[in-house]
């Protein structure tokens, strides 16, 4: 009788598949160092090809900008009332993409979600470089770029300071603060890793890392201060990130133009930002995993968690999107309703429907495990989601100009031209260049955090197995 019972237990155990682990906790710490430092070695030819392609794209964008700077913004086919065009839309897109790094580094840190540990470093780098790219657009879209410093409150003999009631000045302050804090956060979190690089480097690189690692020796005092500082920075960074994109949203929300004057814009923009950022993280995850052979660290279970997070955010975005339509549809402003109908049926209708399908329907592929774990499909899906989010920014800016309050100003057929598209492609080239440089100079996986993750999981598993009743008779 007892034997039959044991057979049944064995059969149950054989049917039971252990859940895929986020990371194999048997990886030794030494192996982590070796694997990640290997990514900093001399790059292969493919790296240089992609780098120079990005540089070429950036230079094309630079040429377009120089032409525009010298001749005037009219070469971008901007007119009255279409005064903003793609520059503002892409500016918002880049700021939006920067939020995911904060989400992963700071928000998941506070929630003690340790699956973020192998992936937050490159996400945080993405944040910093997105902000730098967004800063380019602030300059590109100005009529008199050479006087951009008027927006900064510097000691002026004319006793004229910027207009603090303008959302663009709030933008300048918020984005400046966010960029500074992001760089500080990224750099500070890298200090123990830079110490590892210092200990393994030679020549001028050793000096470079020695200077950057701020005398890190791994002492307990350094660690305790580090831990408190890092946590405090994360707690400060989260409200800052939320406020940055809310302020960018107020660029539109404080205006009384139809289609913009909605109080749901700040949360809508923040949700869109988190959404596009998460999609970008999935893209970069897949690229880095393949390029640097980080399969043991950027594992499929972590990708799955990322996909689930992206799906949740996509549903939040969808809700806020639909709520905006509902508020306008059942509201009292007939012109805003007309603008909404114009979006759905007018010149830009194709783009509007594309945005809604890419933003609300495509994320459902993230709910199927078979699709979620398929790397090529996830690469395509993440790029489509980001495309949808870029279109969303375009659909916020342009249709309201095309269909405002004043009938005489309604325009039907405005489209951007090659100058605008060229500058936008140049911005992607710029971002790519910065990111590739980062991946080769700094470790794109956080070594000490992965060591912590592996250590804690191993300890937890060992203590759990020591608690299990012994099967010895």
């Amino acid at each position: 009788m007892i034997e039959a019972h044991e057979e049944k237990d064995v059969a149950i155990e054989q049917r039971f598949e252990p859940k895929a682990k986020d990371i194999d906790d048997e990886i030794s710490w030494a192996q982590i160092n070796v694997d990640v430092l290997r990514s900093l070695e001399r790059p292969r030819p493919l790296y240089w090809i992609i780098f120079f392609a990005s540089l070429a794209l950036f230079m094309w964008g630079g040429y377009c900008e120089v032409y525009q700077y010298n001749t005037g913004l009219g070469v971008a086919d901007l007119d009255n009332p279409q005064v903003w065009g793609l520059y503002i839309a892409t500016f918002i897109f880049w700021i939006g993409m920067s939020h995911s790094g904060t989400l992963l580094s700071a928000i998941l840190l506070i929630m003690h979600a340790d699956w973020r540990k192998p992936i937050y470093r490159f996400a945080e780098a993405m944040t910093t470089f997105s902000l730098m790219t967004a800063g380019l657009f602030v300059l590109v879209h100005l009529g008199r770029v050479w006087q951009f410093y008027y927006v900064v409150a510097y000691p002026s003999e004319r006793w004229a300071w910027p207009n603090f009631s303008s959302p663009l000045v709030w933008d300048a302050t918020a984005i400046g603060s966010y960029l500074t804090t992001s760089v500080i956060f990224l750099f500070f979190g890298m200090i123990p890793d830079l110490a590892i690089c210092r200990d393994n480097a030679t020549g001028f690189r050793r000096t470079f890392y020695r200077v950057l690692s701020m005398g890190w020796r791994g002492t307990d005092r350094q660690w305790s201060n580090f831990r408190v500082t890092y946590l405090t920075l994360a707690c400060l960074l989260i409200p800052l990130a939320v406020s940055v994109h809310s302020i960018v949203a107020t660029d539109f929300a404080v205006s009384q133009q139809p289609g913009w004057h909605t109080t749901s814009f700040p949360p809508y923009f923040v949700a869109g930002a988190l959404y596009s950022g998460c999609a970008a993280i999935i893209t970069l995850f897949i690229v880095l995993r393949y390029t640097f052979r980080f399969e043991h660290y950027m594992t499929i279970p972590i990708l799955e968690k990322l996909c689930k997070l992206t799906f949740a955010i996509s549903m939040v975005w969808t809700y806020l999107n639909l709520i905006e339509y509902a508020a306008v549809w059942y509201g009292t402003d007939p012109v805003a309703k007309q603008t909404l109908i114009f979006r759905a049926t007018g010149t830009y209708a194709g783009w509007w429907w594309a945005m809604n399908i890419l933003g609300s329907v495509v994320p459902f592929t993230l709910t199927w495990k078979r699709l979620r774990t398929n790397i090529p499909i996830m690469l395509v899906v993440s790029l489509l989601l980001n495309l949808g989010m870029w279109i969303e920014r375009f659909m916020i800016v342009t249709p309201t100009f095309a269909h405002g309050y004043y009938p005489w100003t309604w325009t039907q057929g405005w489209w951007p031209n090659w100058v605008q598209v060229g500058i936008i492609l140049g911005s992607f080239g710029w971002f790519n260049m910065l990111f590739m440089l980062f991946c080769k100079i700094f470790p794109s996986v956080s070594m000490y955090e992965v060591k912590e993750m592996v250590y804690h999981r191993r300890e937890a598993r060992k203590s759990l197995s020591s608690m299990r009743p012994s099967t010895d008779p």
Partner: protein
Amino acid sequence: MSLDNLSSNWSKLRTRRPQPDQYQEAPYKWAMVIDLDACTGCNACTTACYAENNLPVVGKERFSKGQAMHWLRIERYWGEGTESTQEFPEQGAQFLPMMCQQCEAAPCEIVCPVGATHHTPDGLNSQVYNRCIGSRYCSANCPYKVRYFNWFNYPESAWPSPLELQLNPDVTVRSKGVMEKCTFCVQRLTEAKSRARTEKRLVKDGEVLTACAQACPTSAIHFGNLADSSSAVAKMWKAQQVELSADKQKKDEEREKDEALGKTDEALRGYRILEDLRTYPSVVYLERIRSSEA
């Protein structure tokens, strides 16, 4: 940075505009009345504005792309969805001269990042060309879209020699990248005020006119000082029962009740455009009452 000043003047610094009777004690508040019944759409006002304010003629191609620089534009409207059966289909348009409404609560003033636009003590919305960095937020926020951006560097191409001799020396010639708009011919106003000041008096009604008011052959555009209750413009505003600092006029509330009863008062035909956006514009338009065939 005197904090004493900040604390002692706190209430004055916190007052919003517009206030009712804001211009009670002020010497000047410039305003206009435009009679749409008298306007024939001849564009003399637009041409005068071009001449007076050094506006560049952008050419046919750029005009059709929407990059025109006309501070004062004549808009043409034909009833919605009506088909014209006349020999010339464009006949029967209603004309509306539209320029910067010099709003008391201008949406453009609060959003300029560098403070290139604000309100002057005599009630005009000012544009400071040398402070403007060309972010175009003011134009984005303007509900009337009466702000015009210099998309190209017109000084180098719009006035080939000897046309530069026609330029008005009292008005800046704007380079690329700055925003401009109707200023109610502020150069004329400044000159008139300064002349009046040397004679120790205020500017008399009719002494100074904007270029458009001066050029109009049917006297459709009336310009004057709203703070002077004896001026023609002030009398017209009062007759039309339009108050500067009200976003919904009392007569409109009563009109809704009257129209329900079947009564209309054709004499009360003054209105301000997009008044419910609470911009408090300084231009009253008198509704057209003649029929379209005329």
